[in-house]
């Protein structure tokens, strides 16, 4: 035993192998994911920035070249772009308020025990798993239809005038569909948050003489803080890029009433073939998303640090 050990001692290449010997090849484990994201997200993003400064229309292949800020100035002078920006913000804001508010109420409801709660909860979260294109078609035809839709039938039954939802309240209709899909998500996550609330905290605050509202305000809401943040972050990501619901129902109309940024870019790229302009608009969408990300990612970073100190 000893002879073998002595033979192996004093290897000359200490410094070189130091990192590899004391742990796994961390860099090589991370590299595939990092490279994949670089190739599929960051490189194309860089190309988008490049195109945004080019004259590039697939219909006019001869007119290529550096465009300077021209695409951006066209964009900023296009009222449709501004309305698309406003529509995007309205959509994100309204859907966040509805889904989080409704999700919280439903989470509190499903946090109580009642007969068949498990099945009821499972039914209630189902919309989250429905393909958005299907949501669009089902709502557009079978619920929102001014004559044959369920909503119209309900209005008539109540003696009211049926509403042509998509024609008269297009944005509201879109918000209803997206909220229908995403309220279950908020419900699911907030419910899990509620269930992780330690029983002794509730008992302590009750012994301190708090009423239901104080208990909710001072114990439940602070406890849900982090979870709410996660809900808002993930929903923002998806709401900012809403596409299928609009594509399947209003196609951005009537007029430009429901054209949000993704749909605007889609139209200018695939119907006007204007690569330069749509790239410039895409940069706008990225900037907008980054404004959201700036605030939300901070939470993730903060949460990481908190986790690290555990």
């Amino acid at each position, binding site marked *: 035993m000893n002879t073998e*050990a002595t033979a192996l001692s004093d*290897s000359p290449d200490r410094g070189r192998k130091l990192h590899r*010997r*004391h742990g796994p090849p961390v860099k090589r484990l991370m590299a595939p994911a990092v490279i994949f994201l670089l190739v599929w997200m960051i490189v194309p993003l860089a190309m988008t920035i490049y195109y945004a400064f080019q004259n590039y229309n697939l219909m006019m292949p001869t007119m290529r070249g550096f465009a300077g800020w021209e695409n951006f100035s066209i964009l900023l002078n296009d009222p449709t772009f501004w309305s698309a920006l406003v529509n995007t913000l309205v959509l994100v804001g309204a859907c966040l308020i509805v889904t989080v508010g409704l999700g919280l109420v439903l989470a509190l409801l499903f946090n109580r025990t009642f007969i068949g709660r498990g099945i009821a909860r499972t039914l209630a979260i189902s919309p989250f798993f429905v393909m958005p294109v299907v949501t669009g078609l089902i709502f557009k035809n079978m619920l929102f239809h001014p004559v044959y839709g369920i909503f119209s039938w309900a209005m008539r039954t109540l003696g009211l005038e049926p509403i042509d939802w998509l024609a008269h309240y297009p944005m509201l209709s879109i918000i209803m569909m997206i909220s229908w899909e995403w309220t279950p998500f908020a419900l699911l996550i907030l419910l899990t948050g509620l269930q992780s609330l330690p029983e002794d905290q509730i008992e302590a605050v009750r012994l301190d003489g708090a009423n239901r509202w104080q208990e909710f305000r001072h114990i439940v809401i602070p406890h849900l803080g982090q979870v709410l943040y996660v809900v808002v972050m993930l929903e923002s990501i998806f709401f900012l890029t809403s596409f299928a619901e609009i594509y399947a129902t209003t196609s951005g109309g009537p007029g430009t009433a429901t054209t949000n940024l993704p749909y605007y870019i889609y139209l200018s790229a695939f119907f006007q073939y204007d690569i330069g302009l749509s790239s410039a608009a895409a940069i706008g969408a990225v900037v907008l998303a980054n404004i959201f990300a700036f605030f939300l990612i901070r939470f993730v970073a903060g949460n990481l640090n908190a986790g*690290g100190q555990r």
Partner: protein
Amino acid sequence: MAVVELNNVAKRYPGSGSKGAAANAVDDFNLITRDGEFIVLVGPSGCGKSTTMRMIAGLEANTGGEIRINGRDVSQVAARDRDIAMVFQSYALYPHMTVFDNMAFALKLKKYPGEDIQKRVKEAAEVLGITALLDRKPRALSGGQRQRVALGRAIVRSPQVFLMDEPLSNLDAMLRVDMRAEIIKLHRKLKVTTFYVTHDQTEAMTMGERIVVMKDGRIQQIDTPNTLYHCPANLFVAGFIGTPSMNFLKMTLGQHGMMLTGPTARLLASPERQDLSNHRGQTLWAGIRPEHLRPTDADDCAALLTGEVDVVEPLGAVTMVQMTVDGHRITAQLDGDTRVSIGDTLTLTCDSDQLHLFDTETELALPRTHAMSTTTV
């Protein structure tokens, strides 16, 4: 079985200050074990004892010095190739494997033949009395049983070195005493060089053949339990080893190099201590263990500590008394039948050869030529 040698071992974390990591977790660590020795690393939390063990394990790289096992420098060798076994504080059993599979895992990785694995695991299980548990998953075991499985996982491999990182700290007090004895028995039987980390000095004293006392990443003293108790190298070791802790008083050494005086207290150093002549007139820390104090009636002794009793704790066999002398908190362990009450004025004395003296600047013990002292390795 192996001789483990640590030469100037150091651990420095880069980017000192950030994230609470100390700049020097371990510094200048030197130790050579005997083959089959039971070494205990003890110290307060954050003293670097666990880091030292993790460096021996190979879970962390030493940034300085070298670690040799049987003469072979393993500083650059991965943990899995060092032929050591470790018992973790959390036991770190694999939750998805049965007890048998937990113990067999290392052997399977080494591609031992099936019957061999069976045999070794069964033997280890018998030694630890967990044969009946082999088919269970860790979650179905009690704390003590998990502890045994963790030990079993280590011994089944017959490694060169055992490392135990506070293995008993998750057990309740009764079980801890039992397991302590069991680990010592196991060590006598297997004679594998063992490093044992603990923050509990009682555990250290009862288990270690030699004890390494650490503080702030540095070794304070390496000695047998007896020597640590009788000849602590410095103020820290003196206060850390022994329960209740040693009492300390700041006193001035008289012109004859024998009499120590405080505002009210008087203590007498052993007349055999010639060396004290160099410290005449200096202020020193005087240390006396609680168990070496005893009450006295009158002024006839040279060593006297007088104060008002603050706390009395009758424990049956002994009575613990706390009082304040010259602004220092003094604990004394008196006979169980001593009659004292709070508020009494009590005078205590002690033998001059039970007195420990420390330099107030360096906090080192004043060297003493004493019958009890043994040389450190």
